[in-house]
């Protein structure tokens, strides 16, 4: 167990090292803190003195080590646009993004497992075919477009249809197509403060309604992927000898599907899931832009538009850290579920 943890930790540090080198190179090449500090009017000679004082003329490695040392204390300097430490800016935006990701992950797990399992158990049922059809359409719709359509349908509403209201079928179709709108689709409303800068949308019903559309949009990109993955893995597992043997033992189908088959299905799904969490965070940039959700993604885009290099670098480091932590956790969970992986580090 300890050997396994050390190995994972080493891997995580390696990844963080690569990310920090990239982040530092960005800062080193694109950010000019002198410009930021003193403006245009200061003569070149004074700038040079400042540069020397700040150690900006030191060799790359020395500067990197200083950067890494500061990064270890979560000190990445000041944001240009907010004029406060970048970590503070990030901490203010982090809860919104984490809540959005949490709500989305919940939706994905709750929906993908039953749908995936069902369509593997009954691959020829019309409902399975329907799910498969919807999922390939889902994969083909970019997440921001899903968001836009959801806004049109549930926030703005649809009042116009091409069908005559006079006839029976026309009225029926009109009823079907027209929607009221009115769902909140802008920002996160009045989240309830928990402590410090942390505010939550989970504490009130009203807060939750703000989460609905953004979470559905964000889920729409991953859900079809997971449904297809779970279905494919489950179909393969159901062909295996151990499932046939369980049948030959007279075990009930429910136990075969949900214990024997599902446990084996979830192993590869968990691995892929770990990687996909990263994708989910990336897609928050798009969803947050559409819904003006005040999270890290929106902040990051803002930072890019206004070339706030320290904030960009901090975002990259923090998001990298989140990826590394989740991936390590996922590996750990995988190791706990899969008995053939020995957590002692010895090859199985």
């Amino acid at each position, binding site marked *: 167990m300890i050997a396994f943890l050390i190995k994972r930790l080493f891997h995580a540090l*390696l*990844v963080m090292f*690569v*990310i920090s080198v990239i982040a530092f190179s*960005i800062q080193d090449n*694109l950010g000019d803190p002198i410009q930021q500090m003193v403006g245009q009017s200061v003569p070149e000679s004074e700038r040079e003195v400042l540069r020397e004082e700040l150690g900006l003329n030191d060799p790359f490695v020395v500067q990197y080590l200083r950067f890494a040392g500061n990064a270890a204390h979560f000190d990445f300097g000041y944001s240009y646009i907010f004029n406060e430490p970048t970590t503070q800016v990030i901490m203010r935006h982090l809860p919104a993004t984490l809540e959005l990701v949490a709500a989305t992950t919940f939706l994905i797990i709750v929906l993908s497992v039953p749908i995936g399992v069902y369509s593997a158990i009954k691959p020829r049922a019309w409902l399975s075919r329907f799910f498969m059809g919807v999922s*390939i*359409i889902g*994969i*083909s*719709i*970019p*997440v*921001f*477009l899903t968001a*836009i*359509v959801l*806004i*049109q349908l549930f926030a*703005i509403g649809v009042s*116009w249809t*091409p069908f005559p209201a006079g006839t029976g079928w026309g009225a029926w179709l009109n009823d079907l197509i027209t929607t009221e709108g009115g769902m909140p689709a802008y920002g996160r409303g009045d989240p309830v403060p928990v402590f410090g800068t942390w505010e939550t949308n989970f504490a009130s019903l009203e807060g939750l309604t703000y989460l609905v559309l953004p979470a559905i949009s964000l889920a729409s990109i991953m859900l079809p992927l997971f449904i297809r993955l779970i279905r494919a893995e489950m179909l393969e597992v159901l062909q295996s000898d151990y499932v046939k043997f369980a049948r030959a033992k007279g075990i009930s189908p429910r136990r075969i599907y949900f214990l024997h088959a599902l446990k084996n299905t979830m192993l*590869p799904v968990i*691995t*892929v899931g*770990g*990687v996909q969490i*990263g*994708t989910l*965070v*990336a*897609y928050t*940039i*798009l969803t947050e*832009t*559409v819904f003006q959700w005040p999270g890290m993604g929106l902040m990051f*885009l803002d930072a*890019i*538009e206004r*070339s706030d*290099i320290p904030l*960009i670098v901090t975002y*990259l480091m923090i*998001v*990298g850290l989140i*990826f590394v932590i989740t*991936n390590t956790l996922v590996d750990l969970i995988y190791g706990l579920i899969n008995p053939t992986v020995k957590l002692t580090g010895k090859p199985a």
Partner: protein
Amino acid sequence: MTTLTNRPTSRWERFRDSYLLYSFKRDLIAQVSLLVFIVLVAAAVLAPWLAPMDPYDLTQIDILASELPPFWVDGSDPTYLMGTDAQGRDLLSTILYGARVSLIIGFGAVAMQAALGVCFGLLAGYLGGRVDAFLMRLADIQLSFSTLMVAIVVGALFKAIFGGGTFSDYAVPLLVLIIGLAEWPQYARTVRASVLAEKGKEYVDAARVMGLPSRRIMFRHILPNTLSPIFVISTVQVANAIISEAALSFLGLGMPETQPSLGSLIKSGFDYLQSGSWWITLIPGLVLVILVLVINLLGDWLRDVLNPRLYKG
């Protein structure tokens, strides 16, 4: 008689008798998808001749005719079949030109990824050892960050390095490069997996025993055997690249509004959604979805037919 049976079959004959064509003839979804795809590509390629107006020509744009709805909605102008956007450009023409830009970037980016990914995949799989470990670790890190995130970061960097103006001027090749850099790991992993599978086979040993150089063995002997998985992921990757381009454009890191792709059209229309002009964003959106959907359906069909060893997980 013997000459007749020994006659080498032509490529066409081999294609005609192939399982590929056989299953295509039996699959309605694949047929419809291919038809729609061809129509869309043809419309995009022929945009300068098909489009009623040239959206790049400022003199043709009438700012007074902005935000006109499509023909089936009250208040439309028959000159503009699909209505106009906020700048008064004919939406149909803009979509045709936009699809053109999206397709060029989509195919260009896939060519870029394939070139990078196939080379790295071959190297990693054939040489093994440290080269393999390094390249695959790099691919792992990049994938764990997700291709979209990498594309956004690289895009932001390019924009910062070149400045907004230059970036817009060279947006097409830059986007090809960005998406290519972001998505090469998919190819590299698939190619590596099939190289590893091929490498163990006798014909590769035979080639090595004959003293052929590694480069020749890789490109002439192993590469042809990895083609079917490459072919299958390429279809899916074209769809992905088109979506990536749209996403970047939507975030303002892609095509400028003066030279719109489908993604930047959707973006420019989004600002007018609240004021009721849904068509500026939803019609190009629908075109984008149909384009990506038919490519994905074709990809699904190809994967089922060729059933290659794809990298899983």
